[in-house]
């Protein structure tokens, strides 16, 4: 059995770690609340945009002309993956779940004979892609806890430019997918994969059925609107990932904290036993000594 002093030192160190994880838990809890607020704040803009787009695509479908971002490419051989991960670790299984989902996606696409390029947002995802040697087309790291929209635009631009045909009709991506951490609730965050481009035209569910007049024209409005719609979708996904990151970290730290407490309890018990044993030994030694002297 370890000496009483060693155990005491151990208890102290576990208690200190517990204090750190407790502090991190509290910090993550408040950051998570803020991140959730930020996600909610984008809703009015995104919802209005969605409604207007539903209205427009419904009309333009009748006209027959389709915007390139709504139009699927005839054959799919090159896909892009926008991978949104945290910059930092210590958030439970979130990062490994995300990278595992990314790896599965890449293998899956490759087995269908498609090549995959990655647009990485977040350091962990970027490092993973570099480690496995996958093609990395663009990266954004160091976004922080509440990034402004401007900071995420480059990734959206890369995706849009890669998907839309250039002047000579060439393009880099046939489909673009988005993988991010879906915020289900405080306890559950899971990787969510969805198709990002071509844009899924919203059905008439969102349409307001108002007979607008358009300036300059329906096509022009749609032209301007689609990129905004894509940008705000990416922005929402990033904000949601940030909320997921903080809530995953909060849970991880709460578990660490509980474990630290349990460890301290066990160690204290062992310490008391060791102390008791030492005293017992000491008493019996004295008693034995005294008996020896009396004889």
């Amino acid at each position, binding site marked *: 059995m370890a000496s009483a002093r060693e155990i005491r030192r151990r208890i102290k160190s576990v208690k200190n770690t517990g204090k750190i994880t407790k502090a991190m838990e509290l910090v993550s809890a408040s950051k998570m609340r803020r991140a959730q607020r*930020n996600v909610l*704040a*984008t809703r*009015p*803009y*995104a919802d*209005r*945009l969605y409604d*207007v787009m539903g209205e427009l695509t419904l009309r333009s479908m009748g006209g027959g002309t389709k915007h390139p971002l709504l139009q699927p490419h005839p054959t799919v051989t090159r896909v892009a993956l926008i991978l949104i991960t945290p910059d930092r670790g210590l958030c439970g299984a979130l990062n490994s779940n995300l990278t595992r989902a990314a790896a599965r996606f890449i293998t899956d696409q490759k087995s269908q004979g498609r090549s995959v390029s990655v647009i990485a947002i977040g350091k962990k995802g970027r490092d993973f892609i570099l480690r496995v040697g996958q093609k990395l087309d*663009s990266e*954004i790291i160091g976004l922080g806890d509440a990034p*402004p*929209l*401007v*900071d995420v*635009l*480059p*990734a959206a*631009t*890369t995706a849009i*430019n890669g998907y839309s045909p250039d002047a000579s009709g060439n393009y880099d991506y046939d489909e673009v997918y988005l993988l991010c951490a879906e915020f289900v609730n405080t306890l559950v965050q899971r990787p969510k994969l969805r198709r990002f481009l071509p844009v899924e035209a919203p059905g008439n569910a969102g349409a307001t059925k*108002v*007979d*607008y*007049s*358009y*300036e*300059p024209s329906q096509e*022009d*409005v749609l032209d*301007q*609107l689609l990129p*905004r719609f894509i*940008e*705000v979708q990416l*922005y929402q996904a990033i904000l949601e990932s940030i909320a997921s990151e903080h809530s995953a970290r909060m849970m991880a730290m709460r578990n660490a904290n509980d474990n630290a407490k349990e460890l301290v309890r066990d160690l204290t018990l062992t310490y008391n036993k060791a102390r008791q044993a030492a005293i017992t030994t000491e008493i019996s030694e004295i008693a034995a000594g005294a008996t020896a002297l009396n004889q």
Partner: protein
Amino acid sequence: MPIQLEIVTAERVVLSEEVDMVSAPSVEGRVGILPRHEPLLTVLQPGELHYVKNGVSMPYAISGGFMEVLPNRVTILADTAERADEIDETRAEQARLQAEQAMRDRQSTEDLARAEIALRRATVRLQVAKLRRNRQ
């Protein structure tokens, strides 16, 4: 009958208020909206948007977006929106110079995109600030 005016950006709701008149910089020219306007969807260009409430005009600097007009509601989906009297002209000028510098030093298409956006925003701020100064 007042108009319910909402200015929203991707980041937040900037303004939600009942107003008497809205004037916005559409790509086709400036449009004024009074109550019971016909439904309209228009693309906005960077410039000054203002609304009138109880005879007082309040200016906002916006850098492009959309305007949706319904008979008693106007929604501005702006790329960025700021109250014009909160603009600091010297800071906007600095931001413009920085953005121009960044466009020259760009390393990648992303840098270019970022710089373009910054430049656009700074330019609008400056324009609106100048407009206001000239009027005063």
